[in-house]
């Protein structure tokens, strides 16, 4: 693995992002209240097709809650959002057909083998047995997992599970894939490899919506938003954000923003 392969900023410019900047996620005043507490407080933003969109924020800032509304498993209290052209409130099932999701709580079945997980998730996304077979073969080749294809997922190291989880979320070729802290708890090399997979997928035109706590990962994103206490406080390319806050790293951008609020 050559770490030099990833050069976020330069790669970004060379990647094909629609010139017309077609909106694939559009959020207006999206709000989620638990009682009086607004976990997500009237956020608005757009994500463009083919983008790697970083969704940042401290613990409890409302990232996961916002994401859950976008993937159709949490009903917004107010505001609206269109994902892949469908309204999350009125057409959640169509949204679900067009997105992939990988949660921070690792969610393949530990007591099924790698292959069985692929068959199951492919199946419930409506792939035929033949398609699943082709997909499985492609995955085996891509991830080089011939040796572990019949192992129980529970027996694999976390890094492998995450790569698999990501691949499984992509089985049905979704337009957007939502990743909720996909690289939590793994070593830097594995994280690198994971981001290479993300890049490969982005090159194919899939929009990536990713939350993370790692500021080095934020540098890999095309654009990032930073949520503080339920609101989006900043949204731009990492380069512009650093310029705007007059700092060297995304880490400092984040610290500055979080401190300003407190």
């Amino acid at each position, binding site marked *: 693995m050559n770490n030099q392969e990833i050069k976020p900023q330069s790669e970004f410019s060379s990647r094909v992002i629609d010139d017309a900047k077609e909106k694939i996620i559009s959020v207006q005043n999206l709000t989620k209240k638990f009682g009086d507490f607004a976990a997500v407080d009237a956020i608005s933003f757009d994500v463009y097709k083919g983008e790697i969109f970083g969704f940042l924020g401290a613990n409890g800032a409302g990232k996961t809650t916002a994401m859950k509304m976008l993937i159709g*498993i949490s009903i917004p209290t107010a505001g609206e959002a269109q994902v892949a052209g469908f309204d999350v409130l009125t057409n*959640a099932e169509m949204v679900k057909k067009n997105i992939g*999701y990988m949660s921070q709580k*690792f969610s393949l079945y530990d*007591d*099924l083998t790698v292959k069985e997980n692929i068959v*199951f998730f492919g*199946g*419930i996304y*409506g792939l035929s047995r033949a398609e699943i077979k082709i997909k499985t073969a492609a995955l085996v080749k891509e991830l080089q997992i011939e040796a572990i294809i019949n192992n129980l997922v529970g027996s694999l190291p976390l890094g492998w599970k995450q790569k698999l989880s990501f691949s499984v979320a992509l089985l049905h070729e979704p337009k957007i894939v939502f990743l909720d802290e996909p690289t939590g708890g793994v070593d830097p090399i594995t994280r690198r490899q994971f981001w290479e997979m993300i890049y490969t997928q982005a090159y194919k035109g899939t929009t990536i919506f990713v939350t993370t706590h790692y500021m080095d990962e934020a540098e890999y994103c095309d654009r990032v938003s930073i949520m503080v206490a339920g609101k989006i406080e900043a949204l731009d390319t990492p380069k512009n954000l650093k310029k705007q806050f007059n700092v060297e790293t995304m880490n400092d951008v984040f610290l500055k923003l979080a401190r300003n609020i407190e």
Partner: protein
Amino acid sequence: MRTILFIVQKEFKQIFRDKNMLKLIFILPILQLLILSNAATFDVKNINITFVDNDQSAESRALINSFKASSYFNLTAPLFSEKQAIEEMQKGKTDIIVNVPINFSRDLIKEQQTSISVTINAIDAATAGIENVYVAQIVNAFGRNIITKSNYFSTNKEVPENILVIPSFWYNNTLNYKTFMVPGILVLLVTMLTLFLSSMNIVKEKELGTLEQINVTPIKKHQFIIGKLFPFWILGLIVLTVGLLISKIVFNVPMLGSITLIYLFTSVYLLLVLGIGLFISNHTDTQQQAMFIAWFFMVIFILMSGLFTPIESMPEWAQRVTLINPIRYFVEVMRMVMLKGSSFVDIVPQFIIISLYAFVMNGLAVWSYKKSN
């Protein structure tokens, strides 16, 4: 339909992967059926009985011998004072004290009547009642014998009318309690297994976080639920089959009615139980909670099912409660079909109630299962 097959396939793989669970699912019910059917008996046997024979006559010894002849009683060494006998009962060494008075023999022959005192340990009222009946039966038979004999020798030509009651026990003419209990216990096992497994199944996915992943897929609620419950429906029918085989081979319980009818009823009944399990699963967050709630209902269902205590002798309000107890209907149907040979027409009321009930419970369960919140 294809989606459902994928879920069913996955569920079966998970069930069969867990070898320990599989053993529990099959071995435990079989053991329970074998053990409980032999232990849960209404027969009162091995009753310790103590005689205080103050008369020491041929008649008193004849009375004692007629108890000896009964297989229900164990005679302890005869004692000579009431006080000693009461001490024995205090120590728990005897259940019944029979005190034969000093003029027992004389009164019996001369006056044609006498009395003995019987003291019964009634800590367990039900058992005491049965013991009382046994004692009375033996004493009455003994009395009849004596009277007939003495009449024969007496000058009195008038032969007393002897009314002899000859009971005929229908549907279980040997009064074999196992015949009565086995179908009922089988019902319990099938119900417990399917209720517990189904109530813990979906909540388990909630705990693991895989349910969230499922909820993000375009899967339909009914597809998921049917796919989830179908394997347990099959398991329930397999356990029923194993149980029926055991009741035939080991306990020789008759199967007078149609076995198809049993399966037909069970297949609808299982839908109801699975619906209840699913409902519990939807309203709990952990397997522990689900287990507690399933137990709560199970205990009430069992004790109010008419399996161990007749529904007819429950208070009015309790009888009304049993109307919503699914086990009650299943026990009734099993006993009716297996022991009485009832046909479909006879079980129509139970069938309709269970079908409606299943429909309502599953409706509630599907409705309360939310893919989003």
